[in-house]
């Protein structure tokens, strides 16, 4: 097992943070829609009514960080935090790994699109 690591960066004018945070007690999901999608040369994540567009380098960093924090040592009540410009989304570790993996695959497809399209 590994330790989690905080990631903080800017993308599409928004501040992104991937970290861990404690949420004592019962897990209360606050997100009903969580979708990762490739749109041409970008990766877009929809979180309820928020839309976050990422370039492929940013998507790889975010996807990797979600997998890393989701697979790291966790203490009781630890969740994986995905923060977008101050809005916090707390994910169960396994969901963070799955979302991170999906973002990495979408980044791969977006990268392919760029190679096929941009000359």
């Amino acid at each position: 097992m590994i330790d989690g690591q905080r990631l903080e960066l800017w993308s599409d004018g928004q501040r992104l943070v991937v970290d861990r945070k404690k949420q004592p007690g019962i897990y209360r999901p606050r997100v009903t829609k969580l979708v990762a999608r490739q749109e041409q040369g970008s990766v877009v994540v929809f979180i309820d009514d928020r839309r976050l567009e990422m370039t492929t380098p940013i998507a790889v960093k975010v996807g990797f960080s979600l997998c890393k924090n989701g697979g790291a040592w966790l203490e009781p009540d630890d969740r994986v935090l995905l923060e977008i410009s101050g809005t916090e989304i707390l994910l169960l570790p396994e969901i963070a790994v799955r979302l991170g993996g999906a973002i990495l695959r979408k980044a791969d497809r977006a990268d392919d699109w760029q190679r096929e399209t941009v000359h």
Partner: protein
Amino acid sequence: MIGQVYYVHIGAQAQTASKTLIEIASASSSVTLLERAQIGQNSFDTSENLGCKIQLITTTGTGTATTPVPAEAQNAAYGGTVKTNMTIEPSYTANKVMYQSGFNVLSGFLWTPANDDEVIAVAPSGLVGIMLDVAPSASMNFSYGATIRQVG
């Protein structure tokens, strides 16, 4: 293409028992995506229903160290560890069966994700196993393998 793709393949290996055929351990600094898993055999000519599963692992087992082959020759070696033909079973993580299915030994088993969201992501230092979870009625020569992608 993001990351590096590697193949793990074992050919015509006699199996008589239920066991983990492949154990993949992601490196501590990279994510591994499982993109294909397959099991087949070429020595038994009668239909027989066996089963297999893909499940996350908590504690590694003992098996034969196997070097994944890079899809592109100039790629670096896979950073994690792959074991095959386990002699001591790993400890599987409860409630983390990612896929489980029966298959006819004459047809073999092949899993590929139906879409990007079904790709099995193995976190850094995480482990996943591909297991023949039903014992064959007689010794069969199994060929099996996986395609993995290392990112990071």
